[in-house]
């Protein structure tokens, strides 16, 4: 066993198929000859086998395809391996992994013939009739079940995995089995969770789980891994189409969430109509609002320089002080209110312009909101201002920010630039800053 192993392991040139075939042959021999090693190995293989049987059976078709790179197969093998064998610490991990594949491959190879020749192995595998493979798969499954029962906890783990795998494989196998050697649908060998497909397949295969898993699918050399479902055509074109259709339905669902009032509508045509209407209405709304902005434009006497100054200070992220603190006047953030102070006498709209801009300064928004309430209370707002501010009842957080800044700016910008803590109190600093 030990000698045989390295031999096989050294066959780096061989494809996975060959190696597995070889290994299988060897294993069978071992099986007959060495009980002890066999038992361990069988444990290994059985445990692996039982869990991987279905996959392996699937692999059989894959191996028959033969053209796929070793890496792909090994990846799959590894992937399959990982799940059921967390505790499988074999002294020859590689062997174990390969064995898994090999075991699956075994029956097929066995059925093909005793030839040990590599080339023959490949040729045999490629020419292996699916019927044979199917029967072998059945046998294998039976064997695996037997062996699984004989094994201990490893098999338990693997059986669990087997169930998981079972559904997948059954899903694979549901499609026309006999055509497997050809351009059959492919297993989804994506190791990453292909949740959509796997879940679909699990559901689909739930019905057919009682069926015996049979080898069905050939792994294509291409790498679009799609799982063929029961009763569906499995040529490449229809598969690709199916993938596209699924993608499109995914997106339609997402759009359904975006477009309000689309929950009741089923069917792509109706949905598309709704989407078109919604996009049209949004575009019309934009036009209407821009018209409104054009007409409602107030007299603007603002200073562009001030606005640019605001931009300059936009990066100021220092803690915006509570409005009542004098020393903070020198803080750059306060400077942002300068334009407002100048503007306010002209019209409140400027603050409308400025405040949304300022709301974008993250630091301002939060601290502003706190002192704002108290400030409002203490300040002597004109009724007009009060009503104006009350009109803008914030419904969304963003509105709140706007509102708060609007209020603050408004209050601050009243006639004489008041020191924030004192309503209507002129402040030297404020006027100084105003010059900036």
């Amino acid at each position, binding site marked *: 066993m030990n000698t045989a192993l390295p031999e096989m392991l050294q066959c780096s040139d061989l494809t996975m198929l060959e190696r597995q075939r070889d290994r299988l042959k060897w294993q069978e021999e071992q099986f007959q000859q060495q009980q002890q090693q066999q038992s361990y190995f069988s444990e290994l293989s059985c445990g692996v086998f039982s869990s991987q049987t279905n996959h392996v059976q699937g692999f059989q078709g894959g191996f028959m395809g033969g053209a796929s790179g070793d890496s792909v197969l090994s990846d799959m093998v590894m992937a399959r391996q990982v799940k059921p064998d967390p505790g499988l610490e074999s002294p020859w991990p590689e062997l174990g992994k390969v064995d898994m594949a090999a075991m699956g491959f075994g029956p097929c190879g066995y059925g093909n013939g005793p030839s040990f020749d590599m080339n023959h192995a490949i040729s045999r595998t490629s020419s292996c009739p699916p019927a044979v493979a199917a029967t072998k798969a059945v046998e294998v499954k039976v064997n695996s079940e037997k062996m699984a029962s004989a094994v201990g906890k490893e098999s338990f783990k693997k059986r669990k995995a087997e169930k998981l795998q079972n559904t997948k494989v059954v899903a694979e196998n549901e499609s026309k089995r006999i055509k497997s050697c050809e351009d059959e649908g492919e297993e989804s060998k994506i190791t990453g969770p292909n949740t959509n497909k796997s879940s679909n397949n699990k559901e689909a295969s739930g019905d057919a789980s009682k069926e015996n898993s049979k080898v069905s699918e050939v792994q294509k050399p291409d790498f679009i891994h799609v799982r063929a479902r029961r009763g569906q055509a499995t040529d490449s074109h229809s598969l690709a189409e199916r993938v596209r259709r699924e993608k499109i339905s995914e997106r339609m669902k*997402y759009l359904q969430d975006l477009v309000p009032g689309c929950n009741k509508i089923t069917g792509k045509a109706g949905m598309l109509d709704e989407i078109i209407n919604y996009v049209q209405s949004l575009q019309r709304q934009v036009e209407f609002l821009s018209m409104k902005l054009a007409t409602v434009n107030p007299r603007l006497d603002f200073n562009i320089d001030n606005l640019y100054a605001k931009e300059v200070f936009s990066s100021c992220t220092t803690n915006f002080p509570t409005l009542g603190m004098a020393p903070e006047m020198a803080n750059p953030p306060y400077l942002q209110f300068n334009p407002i102070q100048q503007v306010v006498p002209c019209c409140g709209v400027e603050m409308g312009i400025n405040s949304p801009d300022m709301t974008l300064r993250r630091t301002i928004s939060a601290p502003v909101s706190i002192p704002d309430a108290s400030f409002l209370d203490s300040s002597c707002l004109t009724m007009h201002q009060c009503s104006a501010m009350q009109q*803008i009842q914030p419904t969304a957080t963003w509105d709140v920010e706007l509102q708060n800044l609007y209020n603050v700016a408004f209050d601050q910008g009243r006639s004489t630039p008041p020191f924030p803590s004192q309503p209507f109190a002129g402040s030297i600093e404020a006027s100084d800053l105003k010059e900036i």
Partner: protein
Amino acid sequence: MDSQHLNPSSLKSRFTARFLRALIKINAQKPISSSSPREIFQRYRRIKVAADKSMAYSVRSRRTWSRATLWKLRSRSRRRLASSSRRSSIKTRTTTTTTTTTTSTNHRAAIVEKTSHEKENKEDHVGLAVQAEALRELVPGGESMDLCNLLDETAHYIKCLTTQVQVMKKIANLYSLE
């Protein structure tokens, strides 16, 4: 409700900043107390363009529709510049405009060609072709996409449009509060 921190790099913030800046520019150009409809209409057009432009810029070139919008705007401005600067020389103007138009038509022709080709290859919803066409017209840059990508772009476009409408509504509200 608690004040959440605005994400300064969110789409909304970016769009708002840009749009406000554009608005200010537009308003600064023509301090409007006059209400001549023509001026208003001009301003309306400019504001609309500014809104679309700022939204497209906020999205950069990450999306086909934003790229198409920006391209459209740029070509339009180029055409306008060309026509206005070369008004004297008719020949040159026609050449320029024709070149620009030819480039645009070539571009569009290429797009259409590609579209039809793609459609032939990947058409599996024959029944939805009509609506897909309508959607293509609505979404900028939608002519050159198959249904799958078109839906993707539409989703993003809808998201951006809703943001745009939201911001503009708020600004309009603030404007109207005098």
